[in-house]
């Protein structure tokens, strides 16, 4: 399973990012979420959303094995084991592996909790099997 996005449906509201930060950190803080919304205004007038594809490239390079896989197949960061080495960040092909030392003493990423999907009113986000999904 992974998270999918259709950027053309995104209205840039950021509800997904607040829901994400609540799930990851119990905080109302979209700067600590695992999705990126890039607005392109005033022209061409669109949003680009980046989400984790659960490719696992981050886990492969983690020296402390802090990035683990759960029973759904989702990679997640075990906050207690992350040493902020930043090896994972450049490996992420989507740019959704995060370290901001001023905000948290751990790296973070999408753990496929699904809360972002639940708050998205325009159905821009969904979770599906990696093999069968169509974007």
């Amino acid at each position, binding site marked *: 399973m992974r998270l999918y996005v259709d950027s*053309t*449906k995104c*209205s*840039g*509201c*950021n*509800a997904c990012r*607040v*829901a994400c*930060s*609540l799930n990851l*950190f*119990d*905080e*109302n*803080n*979209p*700067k600590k979420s695992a999705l990126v919304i*890039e*607005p392109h*205004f*005033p*022209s*061409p*007038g*669109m*949003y680009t959303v980046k989400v984790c594809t659960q490719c696992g490239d981050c886990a492969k390079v983690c020296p402390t094995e802090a990035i683990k896989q759960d029973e759904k197949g989702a990679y997640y960061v075990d906050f207690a084991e992350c040493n902020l080495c930043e090896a994972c960040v450049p490996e992420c092909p989507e740019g959704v592996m995060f370290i901001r030392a*001023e*905000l948290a003493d751990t790296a973070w990423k999408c753990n496929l909790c699904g*809360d972002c999907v*639940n*708050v*998205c*009113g*325009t159905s821009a986000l969904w979770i599906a099997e990696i093999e069968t999904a169509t974007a």
Partner: protein
Amino acid sequence: MNGYAGKILRVNLTTGTFTKEPTPADVARDFIGGRGFGIYFLLKEVPKGADPLGPENKLIISSGPISGMMIPGGGKCDWTTKAPLTGGYAGASMGGHFTAEMRYAGLDSIILEGISPKPVYLFIDNDRIELRDASGLWGKATFEVEKQFKEKLGEEYQIATIGPGGENMVSYACINHDYGRQAGRGGVGAVMGSKKVKAIVLHGTKSIPVADMQAYRKAGMALYKACKDAEGLKEWIRYGTTTVVDWCNQVGALPTRNFSAGSFEGAEGIYGKTMREKIVITDKGCFGCPSPCGKYSRSKKYNSYVEGPEYETIGLMGSNLGIDDIEVVAQANLLCDDLGIDTISAGNSIGWAMECYQKGIFTKKDTDGLDLKFGNVEAIFTLIGKIARKEGFGVLLGEGVKRASKKIGQGTEKFAIHVKGMEQSAYATHNATAMLLAYMTCDVGAHHNRSWAITYDLQVGRDLVVPEKVARVIWLQNFRPMFDVIGGCRLQWVELSIDRDLYVPALEAITGIHRSWEDLEKVGDRIWNMTRMFWARENDGFGREWDLPPARFYEDAPTTGATKGQITKLEDVNRLLDMYYEQRGWDSNGLPTLETIENLGLEAVVA
């Protein structure tokens, strides 16, 4: 304090100094936030008789406890001040992402005081607060300013800026944010301009504490689920506020040629459906909104991009000016946004001028040579620029129709479509008594959003003048603005019909204080009375006469369209007011009685 970012920032522009004070717990308890904070600080701190454009006036910018939270529509920001347009209360609501960012920067309110000796912008990055030189930005239009900041600082920063309209202190200058959201009405942009503040630039990375995290997340999710399950969601997202254009045209509520009628023969060209098919390129939502009404458009004809137009702009810049082309409306919208003037007041003022021209009161000698016929596209575009830049004929129109018609005389006051000096928004009220009363008694002047009662008129009989209608208007006035108080948007309730009781556990989980809607409406009632007392304090002789509608709606029945020949008699207008004052607990001149003030516990606030 749970549910609050925790601090009120005061910026003394005269001295260039800042103070931060804890958000007062008793004010939070009694007035909650947003518009509640706005009127509380305005009444308390702006001295009687202050010049709206002078150093004593303040610009009070407030979030509410659901701003920036996982609650649908938590993106509304209140801008309260003494209005340059009206001399009374202004509380302008702005969508977008600004209010959420304020809270992430740790601020519940920002209060701008005094006047800066030179153009500045207010820079806030969490606890780093600076007034920075804006002389290089002064004179620039809003899109360019926002773009410059975003390119320099990044997309995480939120920007609110004035354009030339605000710098020139045009009476209805607005404040722009997020390439298309505005604090639009009453001249809040002129106040910011008078203080020489070009922009506020914000960034925050803090969280907002809540009383019960699990209950909050559960209640927030329940609200999102209700929105997503709503039957009307898809249709609403497709058209947003423009969904009502054709309905208004059919029922005679679409302002046409300076509100002389309520149906427009060219309306199809400005229908929401036409707009969606011809120019909309994406939906653009305010913070946390599952049902974005914002439509972002591209006009091929003008090779331009604009957020909108919204219904109000379509009414005032479209049918009200005899325009039947949505691309023209979009371009007029863009010019107003970019130059920083309110589309509603600008469209209404131009409509008044066009009627003056049609009647021969204005000739080309008065209009800088412009042929001000209804439908003249180039004249409209040129006038928008003249208004914002205070050039030539634009100076008069930038005063708003109340002052302009008083200057011109010759009976033009009768078709100056305003209440208390605020130009009426886009509902023609020739025979819609609840909506008429809503405009007459609205706390900022003729604005629709406190009590959108036009559907109720159609539901129960548009010409009825009965206590039930008055009660409905009052209920809406007490209830709907509470969304502005809690820092949210009313449109999930209005347009998706979600159960408003779903907000109760959410607000309780966030703030730790249980408030039923009955409790919240009491707060709404108090706030309504406070705004009324502000008007009375600031305007000698304030009273009943100020609540009268434009004479057009009781003297001048439309000769075409769905409301042809229909009018509300002046005696019925007065009956509406009698009933309204009685139900509000106000005297026959429309002022709250001592008993009402005591019942609402407002003695200390107005002392």
